[in-house]
C-alpha cells in the first residue's frame, strides 16, 4: 500500500501538471483570438481585391488567366496538407490525417497521381514515407503565419499548377467551426473557382477612359488574380492556426479537469491512508496497555 508520503508526492506533481495545462490553455485562448482577428482582416483584403477587379470593370472569364483554366482530364493532383507543428492539441492533427488516408483509399483505383505538400510538421512526419512528397514547407510557422509566407507558398503552388503538370491543387485543412469543433475539409485551390471572383461587372463601374493603367487593363486584371490565391492560402493558414489553438485550448481544459479530479481522488486516498495509520497506532497502544 502506498504511504502518505507517496500520495503527497503524487498530489504535488499533479498540481504542477494542472498549473502547466491551465497556463497552456490561457496562452492558446489569447493566440486563438489573435488568429481570428487576422482572419477577419484577411477577409477585408480579399474584399478590397474583389472590389478593385470590379472597379476595373473586369468580368473575369475562365479563359482569361491560366490560373482559372480547368482541364478536362485530371491526372496529377497536388494535395496541400495543413497541420500543426506541435502536438498536445487533442485529435486536431489525427482527424485530418485519418481523413487524408480515407481519401487516398477511396481514390486508390483511379489513375490519378497524388503528390503531397505539407505545412506543419505533424502531417509531414506521418506521411513522409507513405506518400509521394512534393514539398515540405518547413519554414512556415504554423502557430503564427504571416502573409509573406503565404505569398511564398502561393507562388510555389501557382508554379506547380502552371509548369509542373498538376491539373488540380487542393487544400486539406481543418475547418474552424468553434474552439470545440474543427472538421477536416477538402478545398479546391487551383484552378481558381470563378465563383470566388466578383459577379459580372456592373455597367456603372466601367472605368474612366482617361485613367492611367500600367500595364494595360487586361494585364492588370490578370495581375490581381494571383492575389486571391495568396489570400486563400493565407486564410487556410490562419484557419489552421485558429484550429490548432482552439483544439489545444479544449484539450488543455480537459487535461486540467482530469488533473483536478485526480487530485481530489488522491487527497481522499491520502486521508484514508493517514487515518489507517492513526488507527493502527491507536490499536497498538491500546493492546499494549491491555497487556500490562
Amino acid at each position, binding site marked *: 500500500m502506498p504511504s502518505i508520503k507517496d500520495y503527497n508526492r503524487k498530489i504535488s506533481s499533479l498540481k504542477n501538471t494542472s498549473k502547466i495545462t491551465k497556463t497552456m490553455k490561457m496562452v492558446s485562448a489569447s493566440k486563438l483570438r489573435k488568429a481570428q482577428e*487576422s482572419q477577419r*482582416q*484577411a477577409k*477585408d*483584403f*480579399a474584399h*478590397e*481585391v474583389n472590389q*478593385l477587379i470590379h*472597379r*476595373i470593370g473586369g468580368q473575369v472569364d475562365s479563359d482569361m488567366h491560366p490560373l482559372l483554366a480547368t482541364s478536362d482530364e485530371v491526372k496529377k493532383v497536388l494535395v496541400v496538407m495543413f497541420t500543426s507543428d506541435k502536438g498536445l492539441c487533442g485529435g486536431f492533427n489525427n482527424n485530418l490525417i485519418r481523413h487524408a488516408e480515407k481519401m487516398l483509399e477511396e481514390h486508390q483505383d483511379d489513375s490519378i497521381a497524388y503528390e503531397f505538400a505539407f505545412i506543419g510538421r505533424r502531417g509531414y512526419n506521418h506521411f513522409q514515407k507513405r506518400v509521394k512528397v512534393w514539398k515540405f514547407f518547413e519554414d512556415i510557422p504554423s502557430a503564427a503565419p*504571416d*502573409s*509573406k509566407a*503565404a*505569398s*511564398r507558398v*502561393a*507562388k*510555389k503552388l501557382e508554379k506547380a499548377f502552371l509548369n509542373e503538370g498538376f491539373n488540380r491543387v487542393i487544400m486539406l485543412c481543418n475547418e474552424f467551426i468553434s474552439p470545440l469543433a474543427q472538421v477536416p475539409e477538402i478545398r479546391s485551390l487551383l484552378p481558381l473557382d470563378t465563383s470566388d471572383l466578383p459577379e459580372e461587372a456592373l455597367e456603372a463601374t466601367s472605368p*474612366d477612359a*482617361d*485613367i*492611367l*493603367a*500600367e*500595364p494595360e*487593363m487586361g*494585364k*492588370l486584371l490578370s*495581375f*490581381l488574380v*494571383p*492575389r486571391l490565391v*495568396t*489570400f486563400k492560402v*493565407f*486564410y487556410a493558414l490562419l484557419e489552421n492556426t485558429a484550429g490548432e489553438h482552439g483544439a489545444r485550448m479544449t484539450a488543455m481544459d480537459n487535461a486540467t479537469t482530469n488533473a483536478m479530479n485526480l487530485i481530489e481522488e488522491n487527497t481522499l486516498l491520502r486521508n484514508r491512508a493517514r487515518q489507517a495509520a492513526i488507527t493502527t497506532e491507536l490499536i497498538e497502544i491500546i493492546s499494549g496497555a491491555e497487556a500490562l
Partner: protein
Amino acid sequence: MSSFPLRIFTPEGPIVDGEVETIVVTAYNGSLGVLAGHAPMISAVVIGPGKVVQSGATQWYVFGEGTLEVRGPDVVLLVDFAEKADNYDAAKAQSVEASVSE
C-alpha cells in the same frame, strides 16, 4: 507639403491608414512615386523596396506583389505583404531575399 489619404492593405490587415505626403513603390517597370494631386492611375506593383513619408518622417518598406491605385484624392495600395525596413539598403536587401526565396 500637401498630403493625401493613403491606405495600405495586406492580408494581415491595414498597415497604413492616414494622411501621408509621399508613397514610393517598385512598380511593374521601375520605381514609382505618388504625391498629392496625382492623376487617376492603376499600376501593378512587384516585390521591391518602397517608402512612405508621413508628417515628415520616412518609413521604408518592402512591398510584395500587388497594385497601387490612385482614385481621386485616395490612394490604395494592395499588396501581399509589407515589411518595415530601416533604410533603403536594408529594404533592397530584404526584397532580394524575398524574391530569391521563391
